[in-house]
C-alpha cells in the first residue's frame, strides 16, 4: 500500500471520462477573445459557464488601470500584508468596498476562497458551533473546518430544519454562526434570508451571508441578497469575491462589528499568504466603479437570464426553480449529461458539466451562467442548440 493508491479510483474515473474523447474537467481555452467568446478545440465557442455576470473582464478602463498599476507598482507584492506592509492600493480597495456596502469595516483577501477561510475560521473556533446550509460551497466547509468549531448542516434552504437545529443547541445558540449564500452556485436559488434573519434574532446567533454569486446581480445597488431583502442591518458579516461580477480575483469580508478589524491579527488565510498583486487590485477598483456607475449592466443581465431561462423551459428542460443568471438543466444520467455537454461543445457552446458528488441531491447538471455581455444572437444560438440536444437525447 502506498500513499498514492488513494488516487486509483480517481484515475479510473478520469480514464472513463477520457473514453468520450474529451475531459470536461480539463478544458483548455486556447485563446480568450472576449467576455463571452473563446477558442476551444480550435473552434470559436460561446462561453456560458464562466460566471462573468457583468462581462467586465475586457473593459478598457479596467485593463488600463491594471496596466498603469503594473508599471507603477510592479508585478507582485512578494509577501503578506502583515510582514511586507499594505500597499496604499490595498487600503483604497478596502475603503471602496466598505463605502459600497456602507459598512465601517472591510478586509480584502487574496482570493474569494480565502475570504471564506479567513472570515469563518476567525469567527467560530473550538467550543463554538456553525450551522451551514447543506448546499454550501466547498470554501464554506473548508473555512468552518479550519476554525475547529462544531459544524452542523441543515437541509438546503429549509428554515424549519434550521430552527430545529438552533433549538437543539440550547444556550449554545448564542455562540453559533449561521452561514448561507445569496445565490447558490449549482442551481441558482436564493437563501430565504428574511426568515433566516428572524431565526438569527430569536436565537441570538450570528449571521454570515456569502454574496459570491449575488454581488452585482441582486439589490438596487448590486450589493446582493441582503440588500434585495432589506436586511443588511441584521447581517453580521458579508463575504464575497471579486472573481465573478467584478471580473478579477480576490475576496472580501465586510461588517459593522468593530472586532471585525481584529481578524487581520488572527486569520491565517489573511496573514500567511501573499497579498493581492497591484494590477489585480487596480482592475478590481475599476470594475467596482464601473458596476456602480452602470446599473444597466445588471438590468441587461436579468433580461438575458430571462431569455435563456424561458428558452430552456420551452424546450422542456427541468431547471432550478428561480430565474437568474445561474441556469442549471437537470439531466437524468451522468452518461447523458456527458454526451450532451460534449455535443454542446462541438456546437461551439461551453457550459459547466456538474456531476455528483459536487452537486446537490446527486443531480447531473448542464450549468449555464449568463452574462450581461451575451448578445441576443448568442442567446438564440444557445437556446437552439439546447433544443436540438433535447430532441436528440431526451425525446
Amino acid at each position, binding site marked *: 500500500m502506498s500513499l498514492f493508491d488513494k488516487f486509483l479510483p480517481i484515475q479510473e474515473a478520469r480514464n472513463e471520462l477520457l473514453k468520450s474523447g474529451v475531459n470536461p474537467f480539463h478544458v483548455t481555452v486556447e485563446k480568450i477573445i472576449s467576455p463571452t467568446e473563446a477558442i476551444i478545440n480550435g473552434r470559436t465557442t460561446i462561453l456560458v459557464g464562466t460566471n462573468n455576470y457583468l462581462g467586465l473582464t475586457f473593459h478598457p478602463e479596467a485593463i488600463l488601470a491594471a496596466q498603469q498599476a503594473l508599471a507603477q507598482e510592479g508585478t507582485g507584492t512578494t509577501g503578506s500584508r502583515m510582514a511586507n506592509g499594505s500597499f496604499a492600493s490595498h487600503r483604497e480597495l478596502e475603503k471602496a468596498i466598505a463605502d459600497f456596502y456602507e459598512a465601517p469595516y472591510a478586509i480584502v483577501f487574496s482570493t474569494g476562497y480565502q475570504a471564506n477561510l479567513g472570515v469563518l475560521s476567525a469567527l467560530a473556533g473550538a467550543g463554538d*458551533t456553525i450551522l451551514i446550509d*447543506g448546499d454550501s460551497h466547498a470554501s464554506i*466547509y473548508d473555512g468552518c*473546518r479550519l476554525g475547529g468549531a*462544531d*459544524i*452542523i*448542516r441543515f*437541509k438546503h434552504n429549509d428554515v424549519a430544519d434550521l430552527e430545529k*437545529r438552533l433549538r*437543539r*443547541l440550547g444556550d449554545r445558540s448564542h455562540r453559533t454562526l449561521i452561514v448561507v449564500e445569496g445565490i447558490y452556485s449549482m442551481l441558482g436559488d436564493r437563501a430565504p434570508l428574511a426568515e433566516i434573519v428572524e431565526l438569527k434574532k430569536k436565537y441570538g446567533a450570528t449571521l454570515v451571508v456569502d454574496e459570491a454569486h449575488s454581488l452585482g446581480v441582486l439589490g438596487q445597488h448590486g450589493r446582493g441578497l441582503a440588500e434585495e431583502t432589506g436586511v443588511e442591518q441584521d447581517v453580521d458579516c458579508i463575504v464575497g469575491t471579486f472573481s465573478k461580477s467584478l471580473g478579477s480575483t480576490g475576496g472580501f469580508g465586510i461588517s459593522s462589528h468593530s472586532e471585525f478589524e481584529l481578524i487581520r491579527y488572527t486569520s491565517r488565510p489573511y496573514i500567511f499568504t501573499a497579498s493581492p498583486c497591484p494590477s489585480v487590485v487596480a482592475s478590481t477598483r475599476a470594475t467596482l466603479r464601473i458596476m456602480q456607475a452602470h446599473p444597466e449592466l445588471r438590468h441587461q443581465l436579468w433580461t438575458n437570464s430571462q431569455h435563456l431561462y424561458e428558452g430552456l423551459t420551452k424546450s422542456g428542460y427541468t431547471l432550478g426553480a428561480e430565474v437568474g443568471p445561474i441556469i442549471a438543466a437537470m439531466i437524468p444520467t451522468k452518461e447523458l449529461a456527458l454526451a450532451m455537454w460534449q455535443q454542446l461543445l462541438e456546437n461551439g457552446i461551453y457550459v459547466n458539466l456538474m456531476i*455528483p*458528488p459536487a452537486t446537490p*441531491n*446527486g443531480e447531473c447538471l448542464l450549468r449555464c451562467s449568463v452574462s450581461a455581455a451575451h448578445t441576443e444572437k448568442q442567446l438564440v444560438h444557445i437556446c437552439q442548440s439546447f433544443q436540438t440536444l433535447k430532441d436528440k437525447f431526451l425525446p
Partner: protein
Amino acid sequence: MTSYTDILPQLFNTLKPFTKEGFRLKEQTELVSELGLDSLQVMQVLLKIEDHFDISIPLNNLPNIRTVQDLGQEIEKLLKG
C-alpha cells in the same frame, strides 16, 4: 434513556430499513462498507437518527464513526451534553 444500552436497540430499529433483507445488524457492523450505503443514503440515515434522538451530529465527528457502536456512543455523548 440516554445510556448506550438504551440507545442501541433504537439504533438497530432506525437502521433496519436501510439494510438488505436477512442482514443482521451487530454493534460491530460497518455503516458504509457493510450496509453498502452511498453518500446520499448516509445523509438520509443520519437525518433520521438525528430526528429520532432530537440531536445534531457535528460533521467533524463523522470521520470517527465507522460502526454501529461508534454511532451509539456518539449519540450517548450528545444526549448527555
